[in-house]
Protein backbone atom coordinates (compact mmCIF):
# COMPACT_ATOMS: atom_id res chain seq x y z
CA UNK A 1 0.00 0.00 0.00
CA UNK A 2 1.43 3.29 -1.08
CA UNK A 3 1.48 5.98 1.53
CA UNK A 4 1.89 9.30 -0.14
CA UNK A 5 1.48 12.89 0.95
CA UNK A 6 0.58 15.32 -1.83
CA UNK A 7 0.63 18.59 0.09
CA UNK A 8 3.09 20.67 2.07
CA UNK A 9 2.59 22.60 5.30
CA UNK A 10 0.72 25.90 4.82
CA UNK A 11 -0.54 24.93 1.35
CA UNK A 12 -3.99 26.22 0.48
CA UNK A 13 -6.36 23.45 -0.56
CA UNK A 14 -9.88 23.38 -1.98
CA UNK A 15 -12.80 20.98 -1.42
CA UNK A 16 -12.28 17.56 -2.92
CA UNK A 17 -8.54 17.90 -3.27
CA UNK A 18 -6.68 14.69 -2.45
CA UNK A 19 -4.23 15.49 0.35
CA UNK A 20 -2.72 12.09 1.06
CA UNK A 21 -3.17 8.47 0.24
CA UNK A 22 -2.80 5.47 2.50
CA UNK A 23 -4.09 4.42 5.88
CA UNK A 24 -1.05 5.64 7.81
CA UNK A 25 -2.16 9.27 7.47
CA UNK A 26 -4.81 10.61 9.79
CA UNK A 27 -7.34 13.30 8.75
CA UNK A 28 -7.95 16.16 11.16
CA UNK A 29 -9.82 19.45 11.18
CA UNK A 30 -11.89 19.76 8.02
CA UNK A 31 -10.24 16.83 6.24
CA UNK A 32 -12.09 13.55 5.75
CA UNK A 33 -11.23 10.05 4.70
CA UNK A 34 -12.65 8.85 1.42
CA UNK A 35 -11.67 5.24 0.92
CA UNK A 36 -7.89 5.26 1.23
CA UNK A 37 -7.50 8.89 0.32
CA UNK A 38 -7.72 11.92 2.57
CA UNK A 39 -9.59 14.83 1.01
CA UNK A 40 -10.31 18.39 2.09
CA UNK A 41 -13.90 19.54 2.55
CA UNK A 42 -13.35 23.30 2.71
CA UNK A 43 -10.96 25.92 1.41
CA UNK A 44 -8.25 25.86 4.02
CA UNK A 45 -4.64 25.86 5.04
CA UNK A 46 -2.73 22.64 5.62
CA UNK A 47 -1.16 22.03 8.98
CA UNK A 48 0.88 18.85 8.79
CA UNK A 49 2.53 17.32 11.82
CA UNK A 50 3.92 13.83 11.34
CA UNK A 51 1.09 11.64 10.10
CA UNK A 52 -1.72 14.04 10.93
CA UNK A 53 -3.04 16.07 8.01
CA UNK A 54 -5.12 18.96 9.24
CA UNK A 55 -7.14 21.46 7.23
CA UNK A 56 -7.72 24.80 8.93
CA UNK A 57 -10.59 26.62 7.18
CA UNK A 58 -10.03 30.06 5.67
CA UNK A 59 -13.62 31.13 5.02
CA UNK A 60 -15.37 30.27 8.27
CA UNK A 61 -18.61 31.23 9.92
CA UNK A 62 -18.73 31.72 13.67
CA UNK A 63 -19.72 28.63 15.67
CA UNK A 64 -20.72 29.42 19.28
CA UNK A 65 -18.70 27.65 21.97
CA UNK A 66 -18.94 27.50 25.75
CA UNK A 67 -17.09 30.39 27.37
CA UNK A 68 -17.08 32.65 24.33
CA UNK A 69 -17.37 36.34 25.10
CA UNK A 70 -19.78 37.74 22.56
CA UNK A 71 -21.89 40.77 21.79
CA UNK A 72 -25.61 40.25 21.30
CA UNK A 73 -28.49 42.45 20.33
CA UNK A 74 -31.73 42.14 22.30
CA UNK A 75 -34.48 41.19 19.89
CA UNK A 76 -37.29 40.25 22.27
CA UNK A 77 -38.20 40.10 25.92
CA UNK A 78 -40.57 37.97 27.97
CA UNK A 79 -41.28 37.28 31.64
CA UNK A 80 -38.31 34.96 31.98
CA UNK A 81 -35.56 36.82 30.17
CA UNK A 82 -34.31 38.21 26.91
CA UNK A 83 -33.62 36.74 23.46
CA UNK A 84 -30.46 37.87 21.70
CA UNK A 85 -29.33 37.99 18.09
CA UNK A 86 -25.69 36.90 17.93
CA UNK A 87 -25.27 36.86 14.17
CA UNK A 88 -25.66 33.12 13.64
CA UNK A 89 -28.84 31.08 13.13
CA UNK A 90 -29.06 29.71 16.68
CA UNK A 91 -31.34 30.69 19.49
CA UNK A 92 -29.61 32.63 22.24
CA UNK A 93 -31.31 33.37 25.54
CA UNK A 94 -30.35 35.53 28.47
CA UNK A 95 -32.28 34.23 31.47
CA UNK A 96 -33.70 36.70 33.97
CA UNK A 97 -31.52 35.41 36.81
CA UNK A 98 -28.42 35.71 34.63
CA UNK A 99 -29.26 39.28 33.71
CA UNK A 100 -27.85 41.04 36.70
CA UNK A 101 -26.39 40.46 40.15
CA UNK A 102 -28.99 42.74 41.69
CA UNK A 103 -32.65 41.82 42.08
CA UNK A 104 -34.77 42.64 39.05
CA UNK A 105 -38.22 43.78 40.08
CA UNK A 106 -41.32 42.91 38.09
CA UNK A 107 -41.82 45.40 35.30
CA UNK A 108 -38.30 46.79 35.61
CA UNK A 109 -36.68 44.45 33.10
CA UNK A 110 -36.43 47.08 30.40
CA UNK A 111 -34.29 49.20 32.71
CA UNK A 112 -31.63 46.55 32.52
CA UNK A 113 -31.85 45.54 28.88
CA UNK A 114 -34.43 46.93 26.46
CA UNK A 115 -35.17 45.62 22.99
CA UNK A 116 -32.50 46.91 20.62
CA UNK A 117 -29.79 47.19 23.25
CA UNK A 118 -26.37 45.70 22.73
CA UNK A 119 -25.16 43.39 25.48
CA UNK A 120 -21.71 42.00 26.16
CA UNK A 121 -22.25 38.45 27.43
CA UNK A 122 -20.59 35.08 27.93
CA UNK A 123 -21.93 31.76 26.71
CA UNK A 124 -22.56 29.57 29.77
CA UNK A 125 -24.38 26.63 28.33
CA UNK A 126 -26.28 24.95 25.57
CA UNK A 127 -29.66 23.37 26.08
CA UNK A 128 -31.10 21.52 23.07
CA UNK A 129 -29.46 23.88 20.63
CA UNK A 130 -30.44 27.02 22.52
CA UNK A 131 -27.42 28.86 23.81
CA UNK A 132 -27.69 30.30 27.32
CA UNK A 133 -25.68 33.41 28.07
CA UNK A 134 -24.89 35.32 31.21
CA UNK A 135 -24.34 38.99 31.94
CA UNK A 136 -23.96 38.44 35.66
CA UNK A 137 -20.21 38.95 35.95
CA UNK A 138 -18.89 42.44 36.36
CA UNK A 139 -17.19 42.34 32.97
CA UNK A 140 -20.47 41.78 31.14
CA UNK A 141 -22.93 44.58 30.77
CA UNK A 142 -25.26 46.61 28.62
CA UNK A 143 -23.36 48.64 26.06
CA UNK A 144 -24.53 52.25 25.79
CA UNK A 145 -25.54 53.53 22.36
CA UNK A 146 -22.70 53.07 19.92
CA UNK A 147 -21.77 51.77 16.52
CA UNK A 148 -21.85 48.07 15.66
CA UNK A 149 -19.42 46.75 13.05
CA UNK A 150 -19.79 43.22 11.74
CA UNK A 151 -16.56 41.44 10.82
CA UNK A 152 -15.77 37.83 9.90
CA UNK A 153 -15.09 35.87 13.08
CA UNK A 154 -11.90 34.51 11.56
CA UNK A 155 -10.55 38.05 11.57
CA UNK A 156 -10.95 38.50 15.34
CA UNK A 157 -7.43 37.24 16.29
CA UNK A 158 -5.92 39.67 13.77
CA UNK A 159 -8.08 42.50 15.09
CA UNK A 160 -6.80 41.91 18.60
CA UNK A 161 -3.19 41.26 17.64
CA UNK A 162 -0.36 39.75 19.65
CA UNK A 163 -1.00 40.53 23.32
CA UNK A 164 -3.68 42.95 22.19
CA UNK A 165 -1.28 45.12 20.19
CA UNK A 166 -3.75 45.88 17.42
CA UNK A 167 -6.76 46.58 19.62
CA UNK A 168 -4.67 48.81 21.88
CA UNK A 169 -3.43 50.75 18.86
CA UNK A 170 -6.97 51.18 17.61
CA UNK A 171 -8.18 52.35 21.01
CA UNK A 172 -5.28 54.71 21.68
CA UNK A 173 -5.07 56.27 18.25
CA UNK A 174 -8.78 56.79 17.69
CA UNK A 175 -9.77 57.57 21.25
CA UNK A 176 -12.75 55.26 20.95
CA UNK A 177 -13.97 52.62 23.33
CA UNK A 178 -13.91 49.35 21.40
CA UNK A 179 -15.29 46.01 22.52
CA UNK A 180 -14.81 42.94 20.36
CA UNK A 181 -17.21 40.04 20.59
CA UNK A 182 -15.88 36.66 19.48
CA UNK A 183 -18.94 36.27 17.23
CA UNK A 184 -17.63 39.04 14.99
CA UNK A 185 -19.67 41.89 16.39
CA UNK A 186 -17.45 44.87 17.18
CA UNK A 187 -18.87 47.66 19.30
CA UNK A 188 -17.38 51.14 18.93
CA UNK A 189 -18.35 54.00 21.17
CA UNK A 190 -17.02 57.53 20.90
CA UNK A 191 -18.21 61.01 21.74
CA UNK A 192 -16.89 62.25 18.40
CA UNK A 193 -18.66 60.46 15.55
CA UNK A 194 -15.79 61.15 13.15
CA UNK A 195 -13.54 58.80 15.09
CA UNK A 196 -15.98 55.94 14.58
CA UNK A 197 -15.50 56.26 10.83
CA UNK A 198 -11.74 56.14 11.37
CA UNK A 199 -12.09 52.87 13.23
CA UNK A 200 -14.31 51.55 10.45
CA UNK A 201 -11.65 52.46 7.89
CA UNK A 202 -8.96 50.81 9.98
CA UNK A 203 -11.02 47.62 10.25
CA UNK A 204 -11.56 47.66 6.49
CA UNK A 205 -7.78 47.93 6.05
CA UNK A 206 -7.22 44.98 8.37
CA UNK A 207 -9.88 43.03 6.49
CA UNK A 208 -8.29 43.57 3.09
CA UNK A 209 -4.70 43.19 4.24
CA UNK A 210 -4.98 40.33 6.73
CA UNK A 211 -1.71 38.55 6.15
CA UNK A 212 0.71 41.41 5.60
CA UNK A 213 3.31 42.03 8.27
CA UNK A 214 3.65 45.35 10.05
CA UNK A 215 -0.08 45.89 9.87
CA UNK A 216 -0.20 47.46 13.31
CA UNK A 217 2.24 50.12 12.15
CA UNK A 218 0.15 50.76 9.05
CA UNK A 219 -2.99 51.17 11.13
CA UNK A 220 -1.14 53.47 13.51
CA UNK A 221 0.04 55.61 10.61
CA UNK A 222 -3.43 55.68 9.09
CA UNK A 223 -5.17 56.74 12.29
CA UNK A 224 -2.41 59.09 13.37
CA UNK A 225 -2.23 60.79 9.99
CA UNK A 226 -5.79 62.01 10.15
CA UNK A 227 -5.64 63.38 13.68
Amino acid at each position, binding site marked *: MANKLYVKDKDIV*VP*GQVLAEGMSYIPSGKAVRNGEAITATVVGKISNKGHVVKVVPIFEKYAPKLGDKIIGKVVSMNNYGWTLDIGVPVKCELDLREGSQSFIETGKMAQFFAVGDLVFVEIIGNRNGTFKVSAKDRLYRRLPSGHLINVASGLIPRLIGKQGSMINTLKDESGCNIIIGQNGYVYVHCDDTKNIYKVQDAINLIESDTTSSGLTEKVKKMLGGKN
Partner: protein
Amino acid sequence: MTEKSEMSLVVKGRRIDGRKANELRKMTAEVGVIPQADGSAKFSMGETVAIAGVYGPKEVLPKHQTKDDRALIRVYYSMLPFSTTDRCRPGPSRRSKEISKVMIDALEAAIITEKYPATAIEIHVQILNANAGTRTAAINAASLALANAGIEMRDLVCAVASGKADDTILLDLFQPEDNFGQADLPIAVMPNRKEITLVQMDGDLSSKEFDEAMKLVMDSAMEIYEVQKAALTGKKEKKK
Protein backbone atom coordinates in the same frame (compact mmCIF):
# COMPACT_ATOMS: atom_id res chain seq x y z
CA MET B 1 -33.12 21.59 -31.78
CA THR B 2 -34.11 19.41 -34.69
CA GLU B 3 -34.16 22.11 -37.35
CA LYS B 4 -31.13 21.96 -39.58
CA SER B 5 -28.86 24.97 -39.90
CA GLU B 6 -28.28 26.38 -43.36
CA MET B 7 -24.57 26.86 -42.74
CA SER B 8 -22.41 24.01 -41.55
CA LEU B 9 -21.41 24.15 -37.90
CA VAL B 10 -18.22 22.12 -38.21
CA VAL B 11 -15.76 22.62 -41.04
CA LYS B 12 -12.60 20.52 -41.28
CA GLY B 13 -12.76 19.67 -37.59
CA ARG B 14 -13.07 23.32 -36.58
CA ARG B 15 -16.18 24.96 -35.22
CA ILE B 16 -17.59 28.39 -36.12
CA ASP B 17 -15.69 30.09 -33.30
CA GLY B 18 -12.47 28.33 -34.21
CA ARG B 19 -12.46 25.74 -31.46
CA LYS B 20 -11.70 22.07 -31.85
CA ALA B 21 -14.42 19.55 -31.01
CA ASN B 22 -12.99 18.80 -27.57
CA GLU B 23 -12.08 22.37 -26.63
CA LEU B 24 -13.72 24.39 -23.87
CA ARG B 25 -14.53 28.07 -24.15
CA LYS B 26 -12.32 30.49 -22.21
CA MET B 27 -13.21 30.41 -18.55
CA THR B 28 -12.76 33.02 -15.84
CA ALA B 29 -13.69 32.72 -12.18
CA GLU B 30 -13.71 35.10 -9.26
CA VAL B 31 -14.84 34.72 -5.65
CA GLY B 32 -16.05 37.21 -3.04
CA VAL B 33 -17.86 39.46 -5.50
CA ILE B 34 -20.92 40.13 -3.30
CA PRO B 35 -19.89 41.70 0.03
CA GLN B 36 -23.12 41.06 1.95
CA ALA B 37 -23.35 37.39 0.97
CA ASP B 38 -21.68 34.69 3.07
CA GLY B 39 -20.03 33.44 -0.07
CA SER B 40 -20.19 34.51 -3.67
CA ALA B 41 -18.63 33.86 -7.06
CA LYS B 42 -18.74 34.88 -10.66
CA PHE B 43 -18.06 32.33 -13.36
CA SER B 44 -17.91 32.93 -17.06
CA MET B 45 -17.63 30.44 -19.85
CA GLY B 46 -17.08 32.25 -23.10
CA GLU B 47 -19.88 34.79 -23.27
CA THR B 48 -22.05 33.08 -20.68
CA VAL B 49 -21.67 34.79 -17.29
CA ALA B 50 -23.23 33.59 -14.04
CA ILE B 51 -23.04 35.22 -10.63
CA ALA B 52 -23.90 33.27 -7.49
CA GLY B 53 -24.41 34.25 -3.86
CA VAL B 54 -24.72 31.88 -0.91
CA TYR B 55 -26.62 32.87 2.22
CA GLY B 56 -26.49 30.60 5.23
CA PRO B 57 -26.53 28.18 6.91
CA LYS B 58 -29.45 30.04 8.42
CA GLU B 59 -32.76 29.45 10.10
CA VAL B 60 -35.38 27.65 8.00
CA LEU B 61 -38.45 29.73 7.30
CA PRO B 62 -41.25 28.59 7.12
CA LYS B 63 -40.32 26.38 10.06
CA HIS B 64 -42.24 23.26 8.99
CA GLN B 65 -39.81 22.76 6.09
CA THR B 66 -36.97 22.14 8.53
CA LYS B 67 -35.11 18.88 8.10
CA ASP B 68 -33.85 17.82 11.51
CA ASP B 69 -30.97 15.68 10.28
CA ARG B 70 -29.61 17.78 7.44
CA ALA B 71 -29.59 21.13 5.74
CA LEU B 72 -32.23 22.28 3.31
CA ILE B 73 -30.74 23.51 0.04
CA ARG B 74 -32.60 26.18 -1.86
CA VAL B 75 -31.58 27.41 -5.28
CA TYR B 76 -32.99 30.45 -7.03
CA TYR B 77 -31.90 30.56 -10.66
CA SER B 78 -32.94 33.44 -12.83
CA MET B 79 -31.89 35.10 -16.06
CA LEU B 80 -31.64 38.86 -15.99
CA PRO B 81 -33.83 40.73 -18.52
CA PHE B 82 -30.83 41.92 -20.53
CA SER B 83 -29.06 38.55 -20.61
CA THR B 84 -30.58 37.37 -23.88
CA THR B 85 -31.05 38.96 -27.30
CA ASP B 86 -34.81 39.24 -26.77
CA ARG B 87 -35.71 40.74 -23.43
CA CYS B 88 -36.18 37.98 -20.91
CA ARG B 89 -39.22 38.53 -18.70
CA PRO B 90 -38.03 38.80 -15.09
CA GLY B 91 -39.44 36.60 -12.35
CA PRO B 92 -39.88 32.85 -12.03
CA SER B 93 -40.75 30.89 -15.11
CA ARG B 94 -41.26 27.23 -15.91
CA ARG B 95 -37.69 27.03 -17.17
CA SER B 96 -36.09 28.76 -14.18
CA LYS B 97 -38.01 26.54 -11.76
CA GLU B 98 -36.78 23.45 -13.58
CA ILE B 99 -33.17 24.60 -13.58
CA SER B 100 -33.36 25.55 -9.90
CA LYS B 101 -34.62 22.04 -9.19
CA VAL B 102 -31.89 20.27 -11.13
CA MET B 103 -29.29 22.53 -9.56
CA ILE B 104 -30.44 21.49 -6.08
CA ASP B 105 -29.92 17.87 -7.10
CA ALA B 106 -26.54 18.61 -8.66
CA LEU B 107 -25.20 20.52 -5.64
CA GLU B 108 -26.82 18.61 -2.78
CA ALA B 109 -24.73 15.56 -3.64
CA ALA B 110 -21.56 17.56 -3.04
CA ILE B 111 -22.57 19.43 0.12
CA ILE B 112 -22.16 17.51 3.37
CA THR B 113 -25.68 18.43 4.46
CA GLU B 114 -25.57 16.33 7.63
CA LYS B 115 -23.08 18.81 9.08
CA TYR B 116 -25.71 21.56 9.12
CA PRO B 117 -28.89 20.04 10.60
CA ALA B 118 -32.08 22.13 10.76
CA THR B 119 -30.66 24.96 8.68
CA ALA B 120 -31.22 26.31 5.20
CA ILE B 121 -28.54 27.13 2.65
CA GLU B 122 -29.81 29.52 0.01
CA ILE B 123 -28.05 29.87 -3.31
CA HIS B 124 -29.08 32.69 -5.60
CA VAL B 125 -27.80 32.52 -9.16
CA GLN B 126 -28.28 35.22 -11.76
CA ILE B 127 -27.31 34.88 -15.39
CA LEU B 128 -25.78 38.15 -16.50
CA ASN B 129 -25.29 37.08 -20.09
CA ALA B 130 -26.58 33.98 -21.78
CA ASN B 131 -24.84 32.22 -24.65
CA ALA B 132 -25.84 28.57 -24.15
CA GLY B 133 -24.78 26.49 -21.18
CA THR B 134 -26.30 28.75 -18.54
CA ARG B 135 -27.16 25.91 -16.18
CA THR B 136 -23.64 24.53 -16.29
CA ALA B 137 -22.13 27.99 -15.70
CA ALA B 138 -24.63 28.48 -12.89
CA ILE B 139 -23.60 25.20 -11.25
CA ASN B 140 -19.91 26.11 -11.55
CA ALA B 141 -20.54 29.52 -9.99
CA ALA B 142 -22.72 28.08 -7.23
CA SER B 143 -20.16 25.45 -6.26
CA LEU B 144 -17.47 28.15 -6.06
CA ALA B 145 -19.75 30.35 -3.94
CA LEU B 146 -20.45 27.43 -1.59
CA ALA B 147 -16.72 26.86 -1.11
CA ASN B 148 -16.28 30.61 -0.56
CA ALA B 149 -18.97 30.48 2.16
CA GLY B 150 -16.93 27.84 4.00
CA ILE B 151 -19.57 25.16 3.62
CA GLU B 152 -18.20 21.65 3.89
CA MET B 153 -18.28 19.84 0.58
CA ARG B 154 -17.20 16.43 -0.63
CA ASP B 155 -15.85 17.95 -3.81
CA LEU B 156 -16.34 20.95 -6.05
CA VAL B 157 -18.92 20.45 -8.77
CA CYS B 158 -17.79 21.03 -12.33
CA ALA B 159 -20.39 21.19 -15.04
CA VAL B 160 -20.14 21.42 -18.80
CA ALA B 161 -22.36 20.48 -21.69
CA SER B 162 -21.48 18.32 -24.63
CA GLY B 163 -23.66 17.65 -27.62
CA LYS B 164 -23.97 16.86 -31.25
CA ALA B 165 -24.04 19.21 -34.16
CA ASP B 166 -23.36 18.44 -37.83
CA ASP B 167 -23.10 14.76 -36.81
CA THR B 168 -20.03 15.57 -34.71
CA ILE B 169 -19.78 15.20 -30.94
CA LEU B 170 -18.77 18.58 -29.52
CA LEU B 171 -17.80 19.85 -26.09
CA ASP B 172 -19.19 23.02 -24.49
CA LEU B 173 -21.76 24.12 -27.06
CA PHE B 174 -22.33 27.79 -27.72
CA GLN B 175 -25.45 29.51 -29.04
CA PRO B 176 -25.54 28.47 -32.76
CA GLU B 177 -24.56 24.89 -31.95
CA ASP B 178 -27.20 24.75 -29.24
CA ASN B 179 -29.93 26.21 -31.47
CA PHE B 180 -29.17 24.30 -34.66
CA GLY B 181 -27.45 21.23 -33.26
CA GLN B 182 -28.88 17.77 -32.85
CA ALA B 183 -28.37 17.16 -29.13
CA ASP B 184 -27.40 18.93 -25.94
CA LEU B 185 -26.13 16.99 -22.94
CA PRO B 186 -25.34 19.06 -19.80
CA ILE B 187 -23.38 17.06 -17.25
CA ALA B 188 -22.17 17.95 -13.75
CA VAL B 189 -19.43 15.89 -12.12
CA MET B 190 -17.37 15.78 -8.96
CA PRO B 191 -13.99 15.53 -10.71
CA ASN B 192 -11.89 14.04 -7.91
CA ARG B 193 -14.42 11.36 -7.12
CA LYS B 194 -15.47 10.84 -10.75
CA GLU B 195 -19.09 10.93 -9.65
CA ILE B 196 -21.88 12.37 -11.75
CA THR B 197 -24.46 14.64 -10.13
CA LEU B 198 -26.43 15.81 -13.15
CA VAL B 199 -27.17 14.46 -16.59
CA GLN B 200 -29.83 15.95 -18.83
CA MET B 201 -30.35 15.32 -22.50
CA ASP B 202 -32.17 17.30 -25.12
CA GLY B 203 -32.21 15.77 -28.59
CA ASP B 204 -31.14 12.34 -29.77
CA LEU B 205 -27.87 10.47 -29.33
CA SER B 206 -27.08 6.85 -30.00
CA SER B 207 -25.64 4.93 -27.08
CA LYS B 208 -22.19 5.02 -28.71
CA GLU B 209 -22.42 8.77 -29.23
CA PHE B 210 -23.58 9.21 -25.66
CA ASP B 211 -20.52 7.40 -24.35
CA GLU B 212 -18.30 9.57 -26.52
CA ALA B 213 -19.99 12.76 -25.30
CA MET B 214 -19.71 11.60 -21.70
CA LYS B 215 -16.02 10.87 -22.12
CA LEU B 216 -15.39 14.37 -23.47
CA VAL B 217 -17.01 15.88 -20.36
CA MET B 218 -15.18 13.59 -17.93
CA ASP B 219 -11.83 14.44 -19.55
CA SER B 220 -12.42 18.19 -19.39
CA ALA B 221 -13.88 18.32 -15.86
CA MET B 222 -10.42 18.60 -14.32
CA GLU B 223 -9.73 21.63 -16.51
CA ILE B 224 -12.74 23.43 -14.99
CA TYR B 225 -11.69 22.27 -11.53
CA GLU B 226 -8.28 23.90 -11.98
CA VAL B 227 -9.93 27.22 -12.91
CA GLN B 228 -12.14 27.01 -9.81
CA LYS B 229 -9.18 26.07 -7.65
CA ALA B 230 -7.14 29.02 -8.89
CA ALA B 231 -10.02 31.37 -8.08
CA LEU B 232 -10.37 30.04 -4.54
CA THR B 233 -6.69 29.95 -3.64
CA GLY B 234 -5.52 32.91 -5.71
CA LYS B 235 -7.37 35.47 -3.64
CA LYS B 236 -5.60 34.40 -0.50
CA GLU B 237 -2.20 34.48 -2.14
CA LYS B 238 -2.79 38.02 -3.33
CA LYS B 239 -3.35 39.12 0.25
CA LYS B 240 0.12 38.01 1.36
